[in-house]
């Protein structure tokens, strides 16, 4: 048996090596590291959509590789390094948890360029990119505030990090403007991906009186549960209308392709620089799915809000902003909170009953 295994292993290695040498043309090699499977129908799926668009646009000049299901631990470093060793010159690492691993490999290989999604550590050859999802959440809050008959919104949180907390706050601020008595119930599931648990949380929220569910986790479970119960919901990362044709109001759809194409073009032209890009509705880093399952007046309100946010006429975190305890938040960005305050948001705004875990 052991002999058979060794033969298999050698055969497998030979195939891999053959594949590598055959592809060693002088095309630029671009690598991607994915957190989940490309078929997660959420976060990773959208990065894969971006990669495919990139291939469509520049396929004659580049060659792309992706590694999926890479854990956010020591595995990540090994995976990134593997891409470097196989000749990739531009590498996108697409999850927050890859931050330190990316930085470590970046310091080791100064002539390779790295792009890390949603992180805050940068270097000469390591750029970061992310999206202002709170803008989308603000539009969702506007819709929810108007569409909720019960006046209770259910929110499924993954982990209490600033990105998620600022999303909850943006939702609340928008919904409050429409309905000052609106309530947001938050349930933290402490996971990015567990369809069963996400479904359980959605059921619990609906059982406790919420009539609209929104989620900051990766599967379409919440949309599906809401559709089963005849409630309303928002999609996350991807358009999830398939899972609730009569349920989804809209969805925040990550749209990485334009960024990927632009960065690869810069790399090809030798003009790549380490940057910190935080794109929003204006640069189409994400887009809103069609507004569905709502009356025309809410549809119009949603489109108007989207236009106002896109054209910078309306900032979701316009001052004054009161915390849960009622103290006014310092307004570092002039008329609205500064980016750094949103990126590090660790407080709830007034009106949210939940307590941020660990605070």
């Amino acid at each position, binding site marked *: *048996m052991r002999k058979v295994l060794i033969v298999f292993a050698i055969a497998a290695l030979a195939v891999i090596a053959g594949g590598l040498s055959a592809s060693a043309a002088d095309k630029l090699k671009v690598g991607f590291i994915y957190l*989940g*499977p490309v*078929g*997660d*129908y959420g976060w990773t799926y959208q990065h894969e959509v971006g990669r495919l668009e990139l291939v469509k646009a520049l396929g004659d000049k580049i060659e792309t590789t992706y590694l999926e*299901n890479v854990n956010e631990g020591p595995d990540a470093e090994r995976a990134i390094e593997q891409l470097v060793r196989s000749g990739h010159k531009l590498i996108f690492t697409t999850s927050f948890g890859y931050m330190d691993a990316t930085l470590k490999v970046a310091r080791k290989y100064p002539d390779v360029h790295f792009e890390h999604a949603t992180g805050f550590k940068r270097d000469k050859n390591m750029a970061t990119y992310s999206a202002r999802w709170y803008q989308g959440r603000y539009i969702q809050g506007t819709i929810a505030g108007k569409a909720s008959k019960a006046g209770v919104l*259910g929110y499924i949180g993954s982990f*209490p990090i600033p990105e998620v907390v600022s999303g909850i706050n943006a939702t609340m601020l928008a919904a409050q403007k429409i309905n000052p008595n609106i309530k947001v*119930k*938050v*349930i*933290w*599931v*402490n*996971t990015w*991906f*567990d*369809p*069963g*648990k996400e*479904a*359980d*949380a959605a*059921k*619990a*929220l609906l*059982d*406790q009186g919420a009539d609209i569910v929104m989620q900051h986790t990766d*599967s*379409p*479970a919440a949309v*599906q*549960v809401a559709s*089963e119960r005849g409630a309303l919901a928002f999609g996350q990362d991807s358009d999830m209308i*398939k*899972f609730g044709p009569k349920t989804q109001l809209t969805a925040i759809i990550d749209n990485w392709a334009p960024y990927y194409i632009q960065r690869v073009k810069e790399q090809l032209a030798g003009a790549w620089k380490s940057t910190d890009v935080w794109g929003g509705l204006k640069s189409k880093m994400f887009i809103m799915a069609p507004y569905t399952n709502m009356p025309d007046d809410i549809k119009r309100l949603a489109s108007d809000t989207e236009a106002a946010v896109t054209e910078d006429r309306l900032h979701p975190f316009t001052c004054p902003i009161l915390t849960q305890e009622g103290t006014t938040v310092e307004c570092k960005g002039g008329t609205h909170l500064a980016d750094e305050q949103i990126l590090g948001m660790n407080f709830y705004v007034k009106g949210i*009953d*939940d*307590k941020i*875990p*660990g605070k």
Partner: protein
Amino acid sequence: MGLLEAIILSVLAASTPLLLAAAGELVTERAGVLNLGVEGMMIMGAACGFAGAYLTGSTLLGAGVGIAAGTATSAIFAALTLGLAVNQVATGLALTILGIGLSGLIGAGFVGDRIVGAPHLHIPLLTDTPLIGRVLFGQDAFVYASVALVIAIWWFLHRTRAGLILRAIGDNHASAHALGYPVLKIRTLAVLFGGACAGLGGAYLPLAYTPFFIPGMTAGRGWIALALVVFASWRPMRLVVGAYLFGAVTILQLHAQGAGLGIPSQLMSSLPYLATVLVLVVISRARGTAGSAAPASLGAAFVPDR
């Protein structure tokens, strides 16, 4: 529908896949084989079960395909550990990795497709009884099957001669062999049965729990099923208590958060696991002899001398 009823319904749904998979693993382990590949067999059952239900339009056929997939996956394990006496722990872990990868490949074409969830029983009057009606008479077939399965396993292990032989093999395969019992044959059957149950438990997820398939959707439930077998100290009836307790704590912590009880959610999320550890300690203290409930030959390879 009252809140209490809603909570009980959610608990039953959350516990059923655990109970199904754990019941199969219990029989496997009672025969002396430790198959750590439950997660892999479950996810294979989920992917193939969904594919079956989607293509045929029938939940029942989907469940059948899920069972077949779980059984086929466990057959690989049986061939390696029983046929070639390969290390069971390593093979089980490898089986999980294989199952997760292969199921992703099989299910890739079905991601984003929807099916109608398993139908729920409805008996006029009975199902409409307040509070207990839907809990007792309004479940899907999987829930009833899981409870019936555990009772059948209890009866088999403790009331039949065949069950006695299976337990004897698990406790001392050398003696059982000396008495002329076909150790490897019975162990193979036990492993295949475990695979079938894990496949059914996995199929429950895309067929009834959340009616769609996504790679990795078992999300660690196979490991919890393994822990439940230990929690139940290898006794079928305790398995029911363990599975429902685990499900109850999982669901209750979500409700407590929604109600704004102000307990840190990280603590709440770890409660089911803390409860497992606590009960393990209590059980082993009460017995005074920790760990003695495990089948004595558990995990040991058996190579008959011919």
